[in-house]
């Protein structure tokens, strides 16, 4: 990297100009080891309502989603494949949306989930409280919790975030994925070991909090 750029970056960091407080490396609210936020009676695309106590698997994965987001659509298949890969194991995946855009609300979620073939519970949180409690600022963003509902991993699905382009193509940022962070983190958590890495920089759309 160019020396001037490095100097510039160091200057910014040294002045501490980013106003956000920091918890995790890439999260202003949660750090690894934090408890899973409780939630109650969130409506889901299957017509039911779910709370955090409804999930009793050894591993629970919360995924921040938004129908309108090209990064969500670009990685939908990867998410469906991830869920399928843990079929028969004690893993429950819960997608959630908190945006108040019409195209991210429950009716649109139902259409999207059916069209894509979502194979997991997908809830909507009008209050946005779940997203705030998680510090979920991007879609998609993964949060893996162990049997004690302690956070063991947060961040990317894998190392090549994919986006749906305006002409409908799926474009991977870094070529074919080579490091499957979320999958490895779930497997490690199931095995009772520590995911490595425990945090990655999620890449996607910003969540709009109101």
């Amino acid at each position, binding site marked *: *990297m*160019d020396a*001037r*750029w490095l*100097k*510039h*970056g160091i*200057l*910014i*960091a040294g*002045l501490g*100009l*980013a*106003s*956000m*407080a920091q918890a995790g490396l*890439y999260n*202003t*609210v949660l750090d690894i080891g934090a408890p899973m936020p409780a939630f109650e009676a969130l409506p889901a695309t299957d017509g039911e309502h779910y709370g955090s106590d409804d999930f009793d698997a050894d591993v629970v994965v919360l995924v921040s989603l938004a129908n*309108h*987001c*090209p*990064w969500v659509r670009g990685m939908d298949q990867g998410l469906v494949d991830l869920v399928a890969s843990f079929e028969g194991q004690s893993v429950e995946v819960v997608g959630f949306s908190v945006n108040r855009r019409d195209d991210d609300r429950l009716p649109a979620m139902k259409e999207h989930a059916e069209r894509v073939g979502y194979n997991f519970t997908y809830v909507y949180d009008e209050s*946005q409280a779940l*997203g*705030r409690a998680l*510090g*979920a*600022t*991007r879609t998609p963003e993964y949060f893996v919790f162990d049997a004690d509902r302690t956070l063991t991993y947060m961040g990317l699905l894998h190392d090549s*975030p994919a*986006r749906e*382009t*305006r*002409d409908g193509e799926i*474009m991977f*940022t*870094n070529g074919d994925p080579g490091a499957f962070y979320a999958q490895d983190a779930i497997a490690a958590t199931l095995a009772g070991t520590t995911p490595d890495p425990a945090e990655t*920089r*999620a*890449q*996607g*759309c*910003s*969540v*709009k*909090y*109101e």
Partner: protein
Amino acid sequence: MRVIGLEEWPAIVAAEQPDILVVDLWASWCVSCIERFPEMVAMAGRYGDRGVAFMTLNLDDPRDQVGIDWANEFLQEIGADFPAYHLAENLTRSFEALDLLAIPVVLIYDGEGVERYRLTNDDPNDQFDEADIEDAIEALLAERA
């Protein structure tokens, strides 16, 4: 949009001195960025004669020509007559180098080229809006008075 690499960015910022510089980071895939763009254009008009320069830094994937073409057309249609740059870099690398979590982001540099404000939506409980941008600009203008 003028195509640049990461290494050119510091010189571009420096070239705007002694003006205060407001930089809007965006991409054609960022719906939030697009929706707030008209206000940025209006703001540039309001501050244009007060020693405040505006520019945009687009982060579309350099392989995504459809997105880049869309971005260029959008800038024309919306009447963004301030400098527009396209950072032709891998997005993962750009986000790491610029220390970004998500866009939209607005960077505000003082007249010496020092980044004084970084307005992001990285904290769910502290989201920025156009008033925050204007407050930051006014604060820097007040320092000069």
